[in-house]
């Protein structure tokens, strides 16, 4: 059944609406009963909302909503929003990560106050991300990006009595504010050149020709900067190590998986729709070659992330850097787009999307494992992880799966998605990008395996005591691990969908 034949058009935004309503519902619950900390109810509501939104997205996706088969993308409210396969695909990523994070938070926040705020902030941020995926106007992009960002700042600084959390929040906020200013300035410059904020119209104006290549270039670069902040790419990545390290681990998971994916979602759409490469590389006697820009950023980002991660002593910070490295991989999706790429453009973009999906599972899982370790009060360094496997073999196995998958080792999802990504890059002629990625993957194996080594091979220096067996965290981690493993044999539908929906952008 194709859902929108029976539903009104606005219903296509249902995932975002469901999420927003869930957020409001959480506020309501918190308002009605502010003092009691009914963790189960809050976490359950948030999870249910996320799952419902995800379910709807999946249903739409299977039904072909906004895709070629049902008449193409659905454009709403004066082109401010567009619902197509890509937005639904990313919604699926956001909601699944959100669901895992909220389930895990049930245990993580058990001893905290203000849980209502926490869940509502998470759900609103997810709403913002979903909207980012749908945004079809720079105005909507900016506003929804802020909707995703502002709760994130608060979430990072959520542990008000933890200096790390505060410091992380501060740095995240400051760099974020700066980046959003840069982003806004970029938008203003693009507006100066084209007189429009709606993405297809920007493209249309540019196609008519303009002499203002310099202004446009500056604008595009600054917009790219805004996305680079969101995706934690060089040179806007500086917040990431501290924010991921200092934030409560579920928030780190949320930010490094969902928020990063949201940044990519909007970047993919803005650059492919508003600034088609064939147009902007030939404006006014100059060119704005953002593909080259992203290629450069991709190489620097993945190299910096991996090298810096290699010598970390703190597992969480190592994962933070690895997350930067993965941003570099995903950037290949934009970097490998060429003027005459044809189908290859869709392939590489789709591969990048598929990688982000797999990454959503394995990286969220990894951070949630850290959340579990924090819950156990074991510390954050590699040393502190020594011998965990002897006490918690199932969780350690899951973490092992995440680590090897992140490193791109078979037989896990990370391998096949990385393979698809590099393969598509080569197909587009960017074999050197793939080579860079591959070499970086090899290096990454070193530090990922250190975690594994610590858990399974090292002996704990002091007697290891694990207090509780947090059910929610376990559920989330196992869910992520199973997803990571199953995405190897089940990669076919994922990559097929991703590449189909990506091809629709061109």
């Amino acid at each position, binding site marked *: 059944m194709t859902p929108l034949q029976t539903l009104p058009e606005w219903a296509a935004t249902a995932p975002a609406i469901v999420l927003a309503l869930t957020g409001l519902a959480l506020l309501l619950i918190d308002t009605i009963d502010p003092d009691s900390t009914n963790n189960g109810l809050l976490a359950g509501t948030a999870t249910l909302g996320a799952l419902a939104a995800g379910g709807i997205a999946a249903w739409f996706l299977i039904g072909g909503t906004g895709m070629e088969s049902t008449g193409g993308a659905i454009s709403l409210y004066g082109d401010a929003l567009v619902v197509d396969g890509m937005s639904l695909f990313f919604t699926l990523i956001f909601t699944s990560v959100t669901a895992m994070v909220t389930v895990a938070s049930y245990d993580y926040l058990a001893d905290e106050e203000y849980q209502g705020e926490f869940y509502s902030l998470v759900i609103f941020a997810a709403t913002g991300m979903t909207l980012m995926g749908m945004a079809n106007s720079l105005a909507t992009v900016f506003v929804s990006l802020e909707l995703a960002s502002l709760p994130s700042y608060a979430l990072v600084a959520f542990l008000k009595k933890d200096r790390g959390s505060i410091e992380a929040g501060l740095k995240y906020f400051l760099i974020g504010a700066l980046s959003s200013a840069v982003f806004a300035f970029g938008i203003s410059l693009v507006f100066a050149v084209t007189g429009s904020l709606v993405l297809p119209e920007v493209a249309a104006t540019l196609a008519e020709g303009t002499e203002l290549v310099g202004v446009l270039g500056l604008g595009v670069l600054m917009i790219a900067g805004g996305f680079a902040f969101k995706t934690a790419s060089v040179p806007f990545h500086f917040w990431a190590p501290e924010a991921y390290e200092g934030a409560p681990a579920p928030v780190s998971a949320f930010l490094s998986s969902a928020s990063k994916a949201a940044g990519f979602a909007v970047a993919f759409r803005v650059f492919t729709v508003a600034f088609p490469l064939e147009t902007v590389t030939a404006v006014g006697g100059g060119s704005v070659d953002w593909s080259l820009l992203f290629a450069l950023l991709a190489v620097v980002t993945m190299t910096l992330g991996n090298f810096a991660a290699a010598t970390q002593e703190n597992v969480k910070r190592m994962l933070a850097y690895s997350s930067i490295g993965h941003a570099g991989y995903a950037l290949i999706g934009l970097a490998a787009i060429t003027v005459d790429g044809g189908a290859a453009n869709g392939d590489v973009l789709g591969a990048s999307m598929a990688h982000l999906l797999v990454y959503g599972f394995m990286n969220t899982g990894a951070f949630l494992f850290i959340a579990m370790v924090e819950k156990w009060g074991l510390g954050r360094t590699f040393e502190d992880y020594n011998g965990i496997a002897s006490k918690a073999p199932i969780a350690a196995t899951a973490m092992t799966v995440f680590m090897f998958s992140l490193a791109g*080792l*078979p*037989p896990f999802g990370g*391998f096949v998605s990385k393979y*698809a990504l590099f*393969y598509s890059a080569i197909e587009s*002629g960017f074999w050197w990008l793939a080579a860079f990625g591959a070499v970086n993957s090899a290096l990454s194996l070193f530090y990922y395996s250190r975690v594994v080594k610590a858990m399974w*091979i090292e002996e704990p220096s002091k007697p290891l005591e694990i207090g509780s067996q947090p059910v929610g965290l376990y559920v989330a981690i196992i869910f992520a691990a199973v997803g990571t493993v199953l995405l190897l044999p089940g990669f076919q539908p994922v990559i097929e969908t991703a590449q189909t929906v990506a091809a629709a952008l061109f």
Partner: protein
Amino acid sequence: MIIEALIAVTFLAALVTFVLPDRYAGKAAFALSLAPVIGSLYMWQQYDASGNALLGGNIAFETDVVWLQLGQYDLHWMVGVDGISMPLVVLTTILTTLAIVSAWTPIAERQSQFFGLMLLMEANLLGVFTALDFFVWFVFWEAVLVPMYFLIGVWGGPRRKYAAIKFFVYTNIASLVMFIGFISLVFGLGDSITSLRLPEIAQALQAGQLGSFAGLSAGALASVAFIAMFFGFAVKVPVAPLHTWLPDAHVEAPTPVSVMLAGVLLKMGTYALLRFNFTMLPETARAFALPIALLAVASVIYGALLALAQQDLKRIVAYSSVSSMGYVILGLIAYTTYGVGGATFQMVAHGLISGLMFMAVGVIYNTTHTRMVSDMSGIADRMPVTAGIFVAGAFGYMGLPLMAGFAAEFFIFKGAFESTVMEAMPLFTGAAMFGIVIVAGYLLFAMQRTLFGPFRFDGDYDVTEAPFHDVAPLAVLLLLTIVLGVSPDIFFTMIQDAVNPILELGGAF
């Protein structure tokens, strides 16, 4: 479907073993591991392939279904065996079972994890040797490393962490280089192939479909891909000077793991070299005959000389593995029936004999808790049966006729000597053959000092004969070595059948 069943049963056995209590894990793993043994023997009995699987031969137990459609090239689940892989499958199952038995004594903690990982590794190894789609093959290829990493890292010796991570990272980087090389070849083939099935790729390459890629002409691309793949596999084999992970890994690994490492894992490298470099790019291989032969000779002589300098019994056997695998390279580059066939035969023969040697060293270690030559002498006085088998195994390693090692080495020497890939092959062969003198040197010296002479042991342990279940695997391996040495045709006929098509390959582009 029997291959799928074989792999699945082994996986299942691994899972079952994981959840069993430690007390029963060893025995249960042994019992469970008999299933793949029987399965592989049944396969062997039903085996009806002919020719080379990659070159249009008739593949036994073939399955071929589409798994992933990704871009231009589909990924298939394609498995099957031919005369090259069949012996290696049998070797893998038998050696795993024996290694599991040999682990009963030395593995004293976390048994269920240990035995589970052994079976998991076996499953992946079976996948490596049966996969005929590059992607499937690569998945198994890499998946072998993970259990190995843990097996060395958790149950290894004092420097196990260093050894495990070195092994893991080194071989992974090598795999990556190989992967890049192969994929560039695939892209060079362009539209002439539709999937990553190895037979399809090999046949397209033979048909001269290789085009240019990344600014490289077909010839240059073939060279680059060949070098990349050779590097990748050479690390695994290992070929000097890429061997340094091996002694560390062996010394630190517990005995049963060393057995698997030397017995089967090293063969992955040579198997892949044969399947990829020497089958797919024969012209390039012939063009590189000189450097390859040089590397082979260097491995043989260098490895053997290094073994001579070692004081640790395991290190001796480890370096001698480098030496023995050098013969395989020499045989492969010969491009003669006896050369390539002998190289393949050596994979099996060395698998058995090196397994035997590592186990024998392990049995002595179980009792003495030392492997240093200088720490003991006259062990034969207290452990006559073990010492006897040790001596027999050592002579097998030296290439005693009527044991498998001699057959393999003789085939290789004969094949390499009469090779036509270059004028000077007889000289290289002669140089490599000097390895048989050095190998005798270090093994005889080691035996003289440890096993013979007046009994002396600088340790607190009571040196007595090993229990039956320690010695039994040794005896089985010795018996297999002799059977294979007396009647190499058991495998050699089917190997030749699969190898001969490779020799006929000529100028494809």
